């Protein structure tokens, strides 16, 4: 029983105690809430996170569907590649997008080569759309992993039966595969939502003055303005927002695993 005390003490000193200090130092909520910069950041954070989650769910579902049910040689090493993808930092994606869609980049370069115009049409990287695209790219693997696990549990016999009864592929996806995948979609989606709410590197590297989210606002207030108290207020809001959603995620995961155990036991 006592053995758990030393690691807990380390956690308490380096994480829990500092976090309580942040809550205690946060003061003047009303003043911060009235600032337009705060409201903009809150709005941006939520809208980008929800949009990126929806995009990642859609893209992840389609890609995982093909890997699982329309397999091709090399599909397995692709899922290996996805794991490596997640080991890299998120800001690499924004850096890469600069070379694809930036003012000096592949897409605009291709455009000017073909049309002979001086500048290309792609100029969205420094807007919320650039952040959205980077987040969808980076977080889609987080959706695919639980989905691939769920898809491996789908009974092929069920699909064969549906097919032999005349159901075409879209209908099988809708009525056989999708119900099985819903818990995994919910779990992956809420994890992505939390990660998007907390994302910092992508937004920072986008370098957009117009796109501030709660994490970059915390950084700006604390480091650039030296306003620790205001930064703590924004931090409390951000933590509450993500913690609530993370709690939801754990709840869904617990339900998914319970459901899996029940099915295995039946």
């Amino acid at each position, binding site marked *: 029983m006592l053995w758990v005390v030393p690691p807990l003490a380390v956690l308490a000193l380096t*994480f*829990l105690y*500092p976090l309580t200090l942040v809550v205690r130092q946060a003061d003047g909520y009303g003043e911060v809430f009235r600032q337009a910069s705060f409201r903009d950041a809150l709005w941006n954070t939520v809208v980008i996170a929800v949009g990126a989650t929806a995009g990642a769910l859609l893209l992840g579902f389609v890609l995982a569907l093909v890997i699982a049910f*329309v397999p091709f040689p090399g599909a397995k090493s692709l899922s290996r590649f996805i794991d490596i993808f997640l080991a890299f930092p998120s800001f690499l994606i924004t*850096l890469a997008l600069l070379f694809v869609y930036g003012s000096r980049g592949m897409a605009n370069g291709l455009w*000017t080569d073909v049309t002979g115009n001086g500048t290309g049409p792609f100029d969205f990287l420094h807007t919320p759309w650039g952040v959205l695209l980077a987040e969808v790219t980076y977080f889609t693997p987080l959706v695919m992993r639980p989905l691939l696990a769920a898809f491996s549990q789908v009974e092929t016999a069920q699909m064969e039966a549906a097919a032999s009864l005349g159901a075409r592929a879209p209908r*099988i996806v809708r009525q056989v595969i999708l119900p099985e995948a819903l818990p995994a979609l919910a779990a992956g989606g809420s994890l992505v939502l939390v990660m998007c709410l907390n994302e*910092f590197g992508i937004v920072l590297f986008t370098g957009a003055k117009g796109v501030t989210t709660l994490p970059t606002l915390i*950084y700006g207030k604390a480091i650039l303005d030296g306003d620790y108290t205001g930064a703590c207020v924004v931090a409390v809001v951000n933590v509450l927002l993500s913690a609530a959603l993370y709690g939801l995620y754990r709840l869904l995961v617990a339900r998914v695993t319970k459901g899996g155990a029940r099915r295995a036991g039946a």
Partner: protein
Amino acid sequence: MLVHSRWARRAVQAVFFLLFLPVFALPFLVVLAASFATDWSGALPSGLTVTHYQDIAQGDSLTALTTSLVTALAASLIALAVGTWAALAAERLPRRVRRVVDALFMLPVAVPSVVVGLSLLVAFSEPPLLLNGTREIVVIAHTVLVTAFAHQSVTAALTRLDPAYEQSAASLGARPSYVLWRVKLPLLLPSLTAAAGLCFALSMGELSATMMLYPPDWLPLPVKIFGTTDRGALFAGAALAVVLMVATLAVLLGVSRIRTRASYR
């Protein structure tokens, strides 16, 4: 098999690659290509050069790389020790208490990394624990952030472990410490090395908390990459990013070799 006709299967796979390649493969390819270029105003980069890499080999980028490697090594070793200890100790606790301990150790994942950085800044900026502006505070931040992953994977490995091994060792008279060192930890070794690799990779790429905390004399590679690209040197930044990716991949590969060697034992 969802799609039966060969033609339709080809079509589906074509769509798959149309989505997969631009989204997942292209980012790495363009960064790699850009790192060897000086300009990108056409469809392909131009001005082939290796000067960015030569600059890295001479300048303070090398210091940034070592800084990152040392930080990641220290953070992942401490995280592995704390996370494994907590997972092993929590296993013996009553179910309800164990839930709470597990949740506490997973909490840093849900908290934004920027806030983790801010909280350390707030807590350790005044005596008795004045760590603000030291290298240690960067290592502490990385450790806090990656311990959750170490703890999670060791906990998962413990639940998969066959209890018959430790039970038979104990029934033959082995003391708990002996069982731990000679039975449990060797059986856990594959998961431990995998967890160490994950922690190392995450720490190598950590930017958010580091941006809040780094002192001028302890500047990890991601911060250097941000500084370089922020002042407009995109192509030099791409070369630094390639160095970061290669270093991370090399460590992950080395760790996975340990894993396979251990599993044959």
